[in-house]
C-alpha cells in the first residue's frame, strides 16, 4: 500500500493557493499537483494551508496536491561554481545539467541564522582592491554592508569590480540577481567570464518575468549556497542585487494573501524577512566551519531619497552602507561614493594602524574641506592653510578615482593616500594628479627603485613614518611625473 498526504484546492488567487488536508505538513514543505505544478507551504491556518506556486499554470478548485518528500531546498556542492542557476538549483546558463554526484546533500533554503555561539569577532579586512573602500570605508570579512544609490550611479560596476578583484584570493563569490531582466543576467555572466571571475562565482538569478514566489526565494538560495562554502572554511562574498525588488515582490505576495498593508503598503514583517536573511552573514568560529560570509545587499533609491522604508530598514540591519550618487558618477568620479554619508561600522577595527591613522587624517581633511566648500570660490584670497586643505581635498578626490575593473594592492593604496602630505605634492593641482596618477601607480607597482618602499609599508607604526619615506623619494617622483 502506498500512503501519502494530500490536499485539495479550496481557492486560488494567481500564484497563491489554499488547500485543505495535509494533516502533518510543515512550513517550507513542498507540494506538487498531478500535472507537475510545484508549490511551497508559506503559512498554515486552522483549516487551510497557504501555498505559493513555483511553477506557472492553471490550478482549478479541488485539484489534488500531494506532499513531496523533499523540503524547499537545493543540492549544494562545488559543482555550482561557474554556474548560473535558478533558486531551485536548475541551471539557466545553457551549459547543461549540473555535474553532481548522486550523493549530494540537499540544503534547506530557509535556515535560521547561526547563533552567537558560532560567531567570532570580525578581525580581518575584506579587500576589494578599490582604494576608496579599502582605506576610507573598509570592510571586514563577515560584515554586512549595504550598497545603496540612484539608478546609473555605478553600483553594479563597483560590485563587478569587487568580484573580479577576488581572483586568486580564495574568496568564493555568490551573486543573487533578484528579478532582473534576462539580458542583465547574460551580460553579467559574459563580463565575469571575460575577466576569468566565473570560476569562483555562483550566480543565482531570476528574471522579472518569473513567478513572484520564485523571485522571492532568490536571496535565500544565495545564502544557502554561501553557507555551504562558509562551512567548508571558505570566505564568501555575497551580493544581493537588489533587496528593493525583493521587498516589492514580497509586498505583492503579502497583498495577494490579504495580509494587512503597513507603511508604503509593505507587510508588517518586511523588516523580519530582510533581517532574518542578513543575520545569516557573519564571521564564524572554526568549529562551525570557520569561514565567513560578507554580504553586500543592494538597494536602488527612488529619486535619491534614502529615507524611505526599505533603505532605512536595511541601514539599520547592516553594519554600514556605501551611498552611491548618480551626479558624482556623471562627473566621472568612480566609484561614485559619497564619503561623508557612507559608513562602515565594523571595517575600521580590521585595518592596521597605518591605514587607520592615515584614513582618519584623510577623512578629517575631507570633512574640513566640505565645511570650507562655500568659501572656496574666493580661493585666491584665502589663508594658505585653508587653500592647502582645499587643494588636498582635490588631490584626494582625484587619487580616489579608480578605473573600472582595476585593482590596487593595499600598499599602493596607502602610498597614494599619503602622497598629498609630502612636500612634492604640496603645490600640485588636480590636473597634475589626473595626468600622472597612472604613471605613479605603475612606478610603485613595477619600478625596482620603489620596491623597498612597497615592502616597508606593512612594517610601519604610523602614517608619519610612511610620509617620511615618501618624502625621501621625491626626486624619483619628480623624474617620472610630467609637469603640466
Amino acid at each position, binding site marked *: *500500500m*502506498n500512503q501519502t498526504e*494530500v*490536499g485539495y484546492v479550496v481557492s486560488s488567487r494567481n500564484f497563491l493557493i489554499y488547500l*485543505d488536508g495535509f*494533516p502533518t505538513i510543515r512550513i517550507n514543505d513542498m507540494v506538487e499537483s498531478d500535472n507537475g505544478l510545484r508549490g511551497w507551504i508559506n503559512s498554515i491556518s486552522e483549516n487551510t494551508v497557504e501555498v505559493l506556486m513555483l511553477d506557472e499554470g492553471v490550478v482549478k478548485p479541488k485539484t489534488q496536491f500531494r506532499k513531496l518528500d523533499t523540503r524547499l531546498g537545493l543540492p549544494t556542492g562545488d559543482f555550482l561554481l561557474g554556474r548560473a542557476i535558478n533558486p531551485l538549483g536548475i541551471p539557466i546558463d545553457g551549459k547543461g545539467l549540473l555535474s553532481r554526484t548522486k550523493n549530494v546533500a540537499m540544503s534547506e533554503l530557509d535556515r535560521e541564522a547561526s547563533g552567537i555561539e558560532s560567531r567570532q569577532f570580525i578581525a580581518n579586512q575584506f579587500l576589494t582592491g578599490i582604494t576608496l573602500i579599502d582605506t576610507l570605508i573598509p570592510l571586514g570579512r563577515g560584515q554586512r554592508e549595504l550598497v545603496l544609490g540612484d539608478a546609473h550611479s555605478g553600483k553594479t560596476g563597483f560590485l563587478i569590480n569587487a568580484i573580479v578583484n577576488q581572483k586568486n584570493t580564495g574568496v568564493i563569490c555568490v551573486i543573487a540577481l533578484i528579478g532582473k531582466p534576462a539580458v542583465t543576467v547574460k551580460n553579467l555572466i559574459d563580463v565575469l567570464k571575460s575577466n576569468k571571475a566565473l570560476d569562483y562565482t555562483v550566480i543565482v538569478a531570476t528574471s522579472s518575468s518569473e513567478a513572484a514566489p520564485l523571485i522571492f526565494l532568490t536571496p535565500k538560495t544565495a545564502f544557502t549556497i554561501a553557507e555551504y562554502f562558509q562551512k567548508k572554511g571558505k570566505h564568501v562574498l555575497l551580493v544581493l542585487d537588489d533587496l528593493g525588488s525583493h521587498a516589492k515582490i514580497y509586498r505583492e505576495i503579502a497583498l495577494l494573501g490579504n495580509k494587512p498593508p503597513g507603511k508604503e503598503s509593505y507587510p508588517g514583517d518586511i523588516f523580519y524577512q530582510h533581517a532574518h536573511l542578513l543575520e545569516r552573514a557573519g564571521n564564524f568560529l572554526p568549529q562551525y566551519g570557520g569561514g565567513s560570509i560578507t554580504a553586500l545587499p543592494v538597494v536602488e533609491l527612488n529619486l535619491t531619497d534614502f529615507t524611505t522604508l526599505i533603505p532605512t530598514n536595511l541601514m539599520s540591519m547592516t553594519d554600514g552602507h556605501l551611498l552611491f550618487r548618480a551626479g558624482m558618477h556623471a562627473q566621472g568620479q568612480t566609484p561614485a561614493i559619497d564619503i561623508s554619508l557612507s559608513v562602515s561600522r565594523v571595517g575600521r577595527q580590521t585595518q592596521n594602524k597605518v591605514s587607520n591613522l592615515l584614513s582618519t587624517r584623510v577623512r578629517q581633511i575631507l570633512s574640513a574641506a566640505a565645511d570650507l566648500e562655500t568659501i572656496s570660490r574666493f580661493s585666491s584670497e584665502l589663508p594658505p592653510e585653508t587653500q592647502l586643505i582645499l587643494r588636498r581635498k582635490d588631490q584626494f578626490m582625484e587619487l580616489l578615482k579608480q578605473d573600472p575593473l582595476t585593482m590596487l594592492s593595499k600598499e599602493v593604496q596607502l602610498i597614494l593616500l599619503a602622497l598629498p602630505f609630502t612636500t612634492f605634492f604640496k603645490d600640485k593641482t588636480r590636473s597634475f594628479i589626473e595626468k600622472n596618477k597612472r604613471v605613479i601607480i605603475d612606478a610603485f607597482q613595477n619600478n625596482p627603485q620603489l620596491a623597498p618602499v612597497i615592502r616597508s609599508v606593512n612594517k610601519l607604526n604610523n602614517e608619519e613614518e610612511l610620509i617620511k619615506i615618501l618624502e625621501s623619494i621625491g626626486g624619483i617622483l619628480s623624474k617620472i611625473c610630467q609637469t603640466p
Partner: protein
Amino acid sequence: MNDILNTILKDTFSHTLLNHRVKLLKSNLLKTFFGGASPTLTPSDLNWLKSFPESFYRNFNKDNVYQIFSDLEQNYAKLPILTIYLAFEPDEATVANIGAFTRKTFGLPFMLDIKLDPRLIAGAALSWKGVYRDFSLRTRIEEKKEEISQSFKKFLRQ
C-alpha cells in the same frame, strides 16, 4: 436543520449529487412559493422529489426558505469527504451501493467524492482527511516490480 439534512443524506452519497439535489430542491420550493418558470426535471430527479413525505415539505415556508438553504449549504460544507479514486466511471447505482456500504461500515456522516484515475489500472485509492492510500493494482505492480521483471526474464529465457 439537521433533520432536513439527514433526510436528504439518506439516499444521497456523493458530494456532486448532494450539490445537485440541494439546488433542485431549492429551485422547486422557490417555484412553489414565488412562482416562475418550471425547472426541467429528469425522471430520477422527479422521483427523488416525490420520495419525501408531506411532513418534510411542511418545514419550509415563504419566510424561512432562503435562511434554511443558506444554513443547509453551510452545514453540508462541513461534512468530511471520502475521496475514492477508481479506474472506471461508476454509474449512479454503483455509487449508491458504495455509499450505502461505506456508511454502514464506518457509521460516520460523510460524503463520497468519486474521481476517475485510469492510471490505477484496477482497484481503488482512498483519500480521507488529507491522507491518501493507494490500494490499486498499479501500486501492487510497483511493489512487486522486481519480482515481476525477474519472472518475465525467466519466462523469456525458457
